[in-house]
């Protein structure tokens, strides 16, 4: 299974990689270091021509070039990407950010804890819920062809 982590902080990237490796070795965690790279990955552009389609996107909000809110808006307005569950993972718990992200159709909003044990627990919850219990859409890049009832 493939997860795209959109995160610019090197320490957080390393911690997330290691924690997911411990939680579920079957997950391939791909990293985009800013919003523009995330969109290139999702749209198979530039150096990401052979990138897989992720089952889940974990995204920070505050990043250079294109921030998480802009990327979320792009993802949810793109017929080929909008059904990929997108989870916001950020240190911000500002009400304005939470409301904005839900308006932009984020699937859920998680606050990144500072303590290691709490972060490990959070990653376990993400893995347990999204990777083992949730029925994720089987997408082929043709989301727009799906029936809407």
């Amino acid at each position: 299974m493939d997860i795209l982590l959109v995160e610019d902080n090197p320490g957080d990237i390393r911690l997330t990689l290691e924690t997911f490796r411990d939680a579920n070795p079957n997950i391939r965690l791909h990293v985009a270091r800013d919003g523009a790279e995330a969109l290139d990955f999702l749209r198979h552009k530039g150096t990401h021509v052979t990138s897989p389609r992720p089952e889940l996107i974990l995204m920070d909000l505050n990043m250079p070039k294109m921030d998480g809110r802009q990327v979320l808006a792009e993802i949810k307005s793109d017929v080929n990407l909008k059904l990929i569950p997108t989870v916001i993972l950020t240190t911000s718990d500002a009400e304005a950010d939470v409301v904005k992200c839900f308006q932009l159709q984020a699937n859920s909003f998680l606050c990144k804890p500072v303590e290691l044990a709490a972060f490990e627990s959070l990653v376990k919850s993400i893995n347990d819920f999204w990777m083992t219990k949730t029925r994720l859409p089987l997408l082929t890049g043709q989301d727009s062809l799906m029936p809407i009832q």
Partner: protein
Amino acid sequence: MDVLLVEDNPGDVQLMRLVFQEVFTSVRLHVANDGLEALAFLRRLGPNAKAPRPDLILLDLNMPKMDGRELLAEIKKDAGLRIIPVVILTTSVAEEDVLAGYSLQASSYLRKPVDFIALKKRMQTVGEYWLNVTVPNQSLYCCS
């Protein structure tokens, strides 16, 4: 905390009540038997004037009067309701239902197990994620 279960099958409602009694002792489970009843609860209409705003909606798909798809569309059109997470919980594993659910902006989609032990396990995971971890429901891990 409050969870609204939208489910028309009396057996499934009873099973879920038992699960909540065992797993979520501090969570109040409210039940609506169809989509119209759920909307009345969410909009505090009629006898629901004092209904709490649920922290999570668990939604079946196939129901009389107004089904889960129609209800989900109504919720996501309503600026006052769309922020409430909606988790589809159904026996349907049809791919068109999964895609329609995500397309209508369900937060996530889960298959509903038919036996008590499996349902209890699944709901433990659901509760841990949606009632403990996510913002704005409860800032368990949070900074504030």
